[in-house]
């Protein structure tokens, strides 16, 4: 857009945009640039830190894979079928975004406790949420699912149903049409969905801290070091977490490169 004399309205909009970008980027840049190289290497040599970042990535990846396996069929149904109450179901999927994080932790624990038959059944099967890897994954799945399902659903909606119909008329079963037509055209959306789900999962703190203070994921460790030792000591961990996540997401984004145009 080329304006010979900037309109005051456009000028105001541009000023707001710059303000917001600065608000987002300045603290991050400040935090990343504050720790010295020495502090960074020292932190990396701390096995507790490595374990926490590794646990964050591992649990988030587990949640991402579960979301992919269970969420894909669900997203497909939402994209392809109309049924009474569909709007309600879609709102239910978005609920985890709205609920305050500690409430999520408490809600999951109340279902998994001894006072609920599901909790008792889980206990008999040897599944515990409190203070376990499983518990962390459960929380992460809960908060990450809406992001995966919405991304996958948007991907499916972008594939014209007529393509599947043509596939069926050529002899493909519903599953055949899905795997030979729809999936090759939407797997990028699903990778993006998994990335968003994992990003949300890694960033979760409020619900995880209620379900599992230990084993310690990176955000809980950052919080612990901040409360116990102060800002300076928590920064390098935070920077490592951000760097590892950024690297991972850049790699995945590259992997899911240019989506082909779908007609």
């Amino acid at each position, binding site marked *: 857009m080329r304006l010979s004399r900037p309109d005051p309205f456009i000028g105001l909009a541009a000023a707001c945009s710059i303000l917001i970008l600065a608000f987002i980027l300045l603290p991050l840049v400040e935090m990343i640039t504050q720790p010295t190289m020495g502090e960074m290497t020292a932190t990396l040599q701390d096995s507790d830190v490595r374990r926490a970042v590794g646990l964050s990535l591992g649990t988030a990846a587990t949640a991402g894979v579960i979301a992919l396996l269970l969420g894909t069929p669900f997203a497909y149904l939402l994209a392809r079928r109309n049924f009474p109450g569909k709007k309600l179901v879609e709102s239910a999927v978005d609920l985890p975004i709205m609920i305050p994080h500690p409430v999520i932790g408490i809600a999951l624990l109340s279902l998994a406790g001894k006072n609920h038959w599901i909790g008792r059944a889980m206990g008999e099967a040897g599944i515990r949420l409190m203070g376990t890897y499983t518990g962390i994954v459960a929380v992460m799945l809960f908060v990450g699912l809406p992001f995966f399902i919405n991304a996958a659903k948007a991907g499916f909606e972008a594939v*014209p149903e*007529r*393509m599947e*119909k*043509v*596939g*069926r*008329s*050529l*002899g*493909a*079963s*519903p599953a*055949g049409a899905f795997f*030979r*037509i729809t999936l*090759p*055209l939407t797997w990028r959306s699903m990778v993006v969905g998994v990335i968003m789900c994992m990003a949300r999962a890694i960033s979760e703190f409020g619900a995880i801290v209620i379900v599992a203070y230990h084993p310690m994921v990176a955000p809980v460790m950052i919080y612990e070091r901040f409360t116990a030792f102060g800002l300076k000591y928590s920064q390098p961990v935070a920077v490592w977490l951000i760097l590892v996540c950024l690297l991972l997401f850049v790699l995945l984004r590259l992997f899911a490169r240019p989506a*082909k*145009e*779908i*007609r």
Partner: protein
Amino acid sequence: MIRISNLSVNLPGFSLKDIDLHVEPGQFFVLLGPTGAGKTLILESIAGLLPVDSGQIQVHGRDVTNLPPEKRGIGIVYQNSALFPHLNVRANIEFGLRYGKGDSKESRQRFDMLVGTLGLKRLLARSPLHLSGGEQQRVALARALVVDPRILLLDEPLSALDPNFREEIRDILKHLHQETGIAILMVTHDFGEARFLGQQITVIHQGRLQQTGTADEIFRRPTAPFVARFVGMHNIYAAEFVGPMARLGANTLRLESPVSPGSGHVAFRPEDVALFNGSMNSDYREDEEGNTLSGSVIALQHQGVFSDVRIQSEDLQIRAITPTSRVVQMNLSPGEPIQCRITPQNLHVMV
């Protein structure tokens, strides 16, 4: 061959009612109707892509009403070709070969025949995203025909194409039909296409079949006012029949043969209206066979060789299409008195 009986489909805001169709083996059958008439729905019901509420679909005497689409052996080609963008042209065409009769020597021969007939040889390695509309539609036809379906359904296959491609694909369709002898059921809103391709035509309107017949029958003898308007009859009036006469408001027209008394419609084509005025007395003879209506010109539009003349005669508005040279000869202009003559043979009676 393909027999559809009492087919009904109910969707929110739209329904098909009591559709009966019969496509003979090797026949090119055309469903003709305006956009929104339910033509695509009928095709999708036949192909099993849409659940039907009642009725029966038979293919070769076998009831397929409750079979899934992949078990019916019915091919479909949509208006926008719906090629798979992640597969090249060859893979698109071969998509169906792993199912049903499978990848046999016979199917290879059919592949070669179709690729040759449709001129796709040099396109096989290309992505469908880089094809013209006409090329895409040719690939879609090959993809549907290579699996040797019992019948091919065509959903407005020419409408999305540029005019020059349209003619090309239309000719290809006719050629393919003659070459393969496959039965084809095509839907279109274009009477010209229907007339060129269709051996049998059914006109559909608001989810109901209006009239079935050959192109000539539909064109010359429409049986319902909607069909008459659709094939360009334009002058359609409610009428009371009294013996050999039809009363249209204040005017009375003589019919070719008597009709049983009652009410109905009378229609005639604008090109069948002959115009006369005072200056043309030389070739107008009162005693000539015909119905003469007096009125005045209300509008006049030159459209090249022909002119569109609107005439008010009593309470009737008549549209006439007349050679422009004649309009100039008669020195016609709005407000001038004029006489219209319509011979009884050109009057279509619908009761």
